[in-house]
């Protein structure tokens, strides 16, 4: 009996070795790197996401236009909605890629731990979102004539970064969950947007505070802190929820 336990332990020892914190991060980086490399070859997701983001900003900007001038009060809302919409487009695709050729099975079969797979995909989504934001933010700035100062741009980057982390964390989990569902694109939108409401509410409010004429710093800090809390809470929850999602 004890010999059996020992032999079993030998198998476990190797598996456990791939679950250390650093190992998880290394594996996650490996997976994210692979996603970026695939994307640099095809550029399909970034092109569609970025172009779509630009179009959304454009459509909104002539919807909110009066007396030959854009209504800049709605700029922060439009910024976040554009990011959220184009994000959904990319989320579905980046996870879908693992399904072509059934690669998700190969990933699940590899000794890599589940959290590493989840984090790897999240890093990839995050990178894509950043590229989209590099399109959307200048577009909003251009159409709504915001003329952001250096300080404002820095604070906006911070806010967007925190909001995007929250978005990617939850979005990746949902997209992975729905990978094998029918009509997954529609379902993804249905579940993602209600769950994203807090990030959108807080992000919009923080952005509105920071493009206001005299920056209400105290209010802004409170919003940003909330975003950070959201990120942490949902990252922990998502890591935990992703783990038991077994392919069957």
């Amino acid at each position, binding site marked *: 009996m004890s010999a059996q336990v020992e032999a079993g332990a030998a198998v476990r020892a190797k598996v456990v070795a791939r679950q250390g914190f650093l190992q998880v991060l290394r594996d996650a980086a490996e997976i994210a790197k692979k996603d970026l490399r695939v994307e640099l070859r095809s550029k399909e997701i970034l092109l569609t996401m970025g172009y779509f983001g630009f179009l959304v900003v454009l459509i909104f900007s002539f919807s909110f236009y009066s007396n030959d001038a854009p209504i800049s009060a709605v700029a922060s809302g439009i910024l976040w909605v554009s990011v959220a919409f184009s994000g959904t487009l990319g989320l579905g695709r980046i996870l879908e890629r693992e399904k072509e050729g059934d690669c998700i099975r190969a990933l699940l079969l590899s000794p890599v731990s589940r959290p590493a797979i989840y984090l790897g995909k999240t890093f990839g989504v995050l990178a894509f979102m950043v590229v989209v934001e590099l399109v959307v933010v200048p577009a909003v700035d251009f159409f709504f004539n915001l003329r952001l100062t250096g300080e404002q741009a820095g604070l906006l980057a911070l806010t967007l970064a925190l909001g995007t982390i929250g978005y990617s964390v*939850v979005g990746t*989990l949902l997209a992975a*969950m*729905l990978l*094998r*569902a*029918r*009509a997954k694109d529609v*379902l993804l939108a*249905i*579940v993602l947007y*209600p*769950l994203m*409401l*807090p990030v959108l*509410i*807080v992000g919009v*409010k923080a952005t509105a505070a920071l493009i206001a004429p005299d920056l209400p710093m105290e209010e802004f800090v*409170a*919003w940003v802190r*909330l975003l950070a*809390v*959201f990120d942490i*809470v*949902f990252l922990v*929850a998502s890591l*935990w*929820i992703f783990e*038991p*999602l*077994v*392919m*069957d």
Partner: protein
Amino acid sequence: MSAETLASVNEALFDRTRGLKTPPALMALSVTAAVLLAVAAWMVFFYAPLEKEMGFVQKIFYFHVPSAWIMLLSAPLMAFGSVAYLIKRQDKYDHLSDAGVELAILFGALVLITGPLWGRKAWGVYWVWDVRLTSTLVMVLTLVACKIVRGYAGPNAKQIAAGLALLAVLNATFVYFSVDLWKGTHPPKLIQTLEPQMKQTFWLSVLAFHLAWGAMLWARLRMGKLRSALDRLHMQATEAGLDD
């Protein structure tokens, strides 16, 4: 098929039919809840006096507040069911989570219908982005999505639904804090300020709602149990080769 497996299927069938009768306690609970709901409704309209400021609209309060409380009661229930299901993978926890989700949607919807009616009178508009209204809305929206996904998600539907229910609860909590920071228009706690007849009506209504909730939860859990028993039976039958 062996005589032995046939006997076990038979026995299972026999056991199930006995389980099909509604337990008397559930029956009694349902009847009591129904009667109390009727009495509470009567008291709301004919016993409790008209409130000076809000007038007739104030009567919404007797339905709105108990619904909100019950929704809050359903949330930890489904959170617990979801966590337990994700860990243990036993169907009974899935039923608990699902029942919690459905009850939270039902009573959350009541909150969302009655809230704006009150708001129209109190603030002149139907919808304000108030803390509690917003967090209720977000939770109900997420839970409805959760029910939809459960229907279409395929083989992992139960795990997915459990995960989503858990996220929904976390999310509603988060919304509560975030909108609180933003602004708060919701009326403060009114219960202490009520006249005695109003108080009596209110507490009876609360009791009636809770009993109704208990009866629904029980019935829903029982339905889940029977359904998995049926599935098990089907599986046994398939195992025994009855599908051939």
